[in-house]
């Protein structure tokens, strides 16, 4: 452990050795720490929101406070936790290792991205305390409300703009890295599927985020100069804003899920000791999701007043994008066949991921069908869907990866029993919390409601109780991980017997990653 990058001499002393580092591993850990901190903010807000919603007529918050809080919850979770979460933390740490590279292609731009990310987060947080408080627009910033409300929309939106810039730069950096810095022998067909997933994600980050940037910039210009693009009184078209917002934000949901899919694809073969089933199909479906993901944004607008023709086209395309996800699920399950399976925590979280993501994805079909969307749009059904895919899917995949690569990143092992216990709490609490929301949604409870009619009481109560169980699970999990940072047993270089390159260096790796430049002679999942 002495030779690890933690002990490497840095250009700047102490904390500055971290803040101004160009080492991708340190940048990855900075991202990990910051996005988990934001996650903690987000979940705390979620918990208090559930408290407000425990029964109708509850007044734990005022209506304005609640509206600002669900907006903040959404913005933090999406822009500050789940989008940068896997690609920028695990991706930064692991992907160059999997390539056998010394670092990413542009190490300075890498740390610049982190700084932009933090600056963006700081803007968003500052907007809480300045002006007339955090925006109360929802994370979707729909006009014309967002140009009329007196809250501090401009600053928060500028923060998101900076985060977008950071995300774009990361995408550019990773793409160049994967194209140019693969170790000798590491052909595209030997690339670990996590790296393939990061590759697909990076394209989405690169090509979708600028549209968000310009959209947000136009909102700011609208608020400051009144240019009129989104103001119906001046001929502006609010539906155009919805188009532009979702042109980014639908692909963005695949920025969240693709890396998580990559994580579980890397975990399954290692714990079932056999090659992944359908390597090509999985790699191709990542690219297919990234591509088709551009074509379906209109499914968020089926009731927006968009033309009926467009609704039908977008519904059709939406169904196509579901297929590659299905292909992945089938291949994952097939990869367990005739394996020799060890159900350690990473695999357990992976199985949880598959189950919860399937529920989330399949309910996506309900939303994608026109006849049903007219009913479920804007209700808790949607809220349930996206928590299943984002929390049950993306975040669960993140946790799986965190356990899987924990020994690589920190050189120590977490406590297995606690990790499993946390999983049980997470799984039960999660389903209580969010499954109730499907029922509420189908019964017609609208989302973003500060208070609701008494007829919706029962499922809401179950949901709130579920949130406490889930909180317990999260608490146990993070306690275990944090405690093991200092007190875990030393893990060794390759505790799981992985065959990808990151397991061939020491844990934690030295600053230059590999003492000898590795050469690749076999596929990523050939264990023998």
């Amino acid at each position, binding site marked *: 452990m002495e030779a690890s990058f933690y002990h490497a001499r840095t250009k700047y002393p102490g904390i500055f050795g971290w803040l101004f580092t160009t080492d991708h591993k340190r940048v990855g850990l900075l991202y990990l720490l910051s996005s988990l901190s934001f996650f903690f903010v987000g979940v705390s807000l979620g918990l208090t929101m559930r408290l407000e919603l425990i029964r109708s007529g509850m007044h734990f918050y005022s209506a304005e406070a609640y509206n600002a809080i669900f907006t903040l919850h959404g913005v933090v979770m999406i822009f500050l936790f789940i989008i940068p979460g896997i690609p920028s933390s695990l991706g930064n740490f692991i992907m160059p290792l999997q390539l056998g590279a010394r670092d990413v292609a542009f190490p300075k731009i890498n740390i610049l991205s982190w700084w932009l990310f933090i600056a963006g987060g700081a803007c968003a947080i500052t907007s809480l305390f300045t002006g007339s408080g955090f925006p109360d627009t929802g994370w979707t910033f729909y006009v014309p409300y967002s140009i009329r409300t007196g809250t501090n929309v401009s600053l928060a939106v500028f923060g998101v703009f900076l985060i977008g810039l950071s995300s774009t730069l990361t995408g550019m950096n990773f793409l160049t890295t994967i194209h140019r810095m693969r170790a000798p022998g590491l052909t595209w067909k030997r690339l670990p599927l996590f790296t393939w997933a990061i590759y697909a994600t990076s394209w989405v980050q690169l090509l979708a985020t600028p549209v968000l940037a310009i959209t947000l910039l136009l909102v700011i210009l609208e608020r400051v100069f009144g240019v009129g693009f989104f103001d119906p009184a001046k001929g502006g078209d609010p539906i155009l804003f919805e188009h532009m917002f979702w042109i980014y934000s639908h692909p963005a949901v695949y920025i969240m899920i693709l890396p998580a899919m990559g994580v579980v694809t890397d975990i399954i073969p290692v714990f079932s000791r056999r090659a992944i089933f359908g390597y090509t199909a999985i790699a191709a479906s990542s690219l297919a999701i990234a591509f088709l993901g551009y074509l379906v944004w209109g499914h968020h607008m089926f009731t927006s007043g968009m*033309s009926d023709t467009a609704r039908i086209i977008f519904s059709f395309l939406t169904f196509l994008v579901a297929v590659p996800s299905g292909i992945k699920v089938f291949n994952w399950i097939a990869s367990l066949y005739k394996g020799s399976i060890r159900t350690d925590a990473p695999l357990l979280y992976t199985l949880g991921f598959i189950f919860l993501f399937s529920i989330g994805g399949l309910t996506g079909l309900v939303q994608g069908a026109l006849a049903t969307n007219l009913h479920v749009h804007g209700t808790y059904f949607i809220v349930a869907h996206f928590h299943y895919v984002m929390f049950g899917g993306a975040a669960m995949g993140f946790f799986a990866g965190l356990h899987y690569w924990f020994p690589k990143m920190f050189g120590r092992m977490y406590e297995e029993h606690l990790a499993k216990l946390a999983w049980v709490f997470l799984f039960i609490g999660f389903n209580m919390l969010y499954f109730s929301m499907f029922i509420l949604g189908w019964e017609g409870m609208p989302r973003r409601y500060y208070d609701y009619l008494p007829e919706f009481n029962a499922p809401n109560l179950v949901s709130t109780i579920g949130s406490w169980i889930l909180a317990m699970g999260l608490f146990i999990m993070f306690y275990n991980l944090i405690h093991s940072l200092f007190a875990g047993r030393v893990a060794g270089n390759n505790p799981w017997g992985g065959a990808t390159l990151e397991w061939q260096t020491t844990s934690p790796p030295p600053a230059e990653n590999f003492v000898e430049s590795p050469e690749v002679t076999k596929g990523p999942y050939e264990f023998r």
Partner: protein
Amino acid sequence: MEQKPEQHFVATRTFVFTWLALLLLTGLTVEAAHLRMGEWSMIANIAIASAKASLVLWFFMHLKYERKLFKVLLFVPIATISIIIWLTFFDIWYR
């Protein structure tokens, strides 16, 4: 990883001719606008602009001399933005 910059000198002549062609097209596009062909003059203008843009990309930006990867990749953002605008118009046309 060490690579020498490719030893391909582009003749100054090539650049100057490109520039002349660009000026010519600029004149053409101003003329086309005066012809009052209704919607067609807009289409002609965009076509000419695309021709100019291609010249800049191909010669000034050296695309002609780059490896194939670059040419293929450039297709990606252009296709993306075209598809996005096209799909959005299914809303605008049929509203």
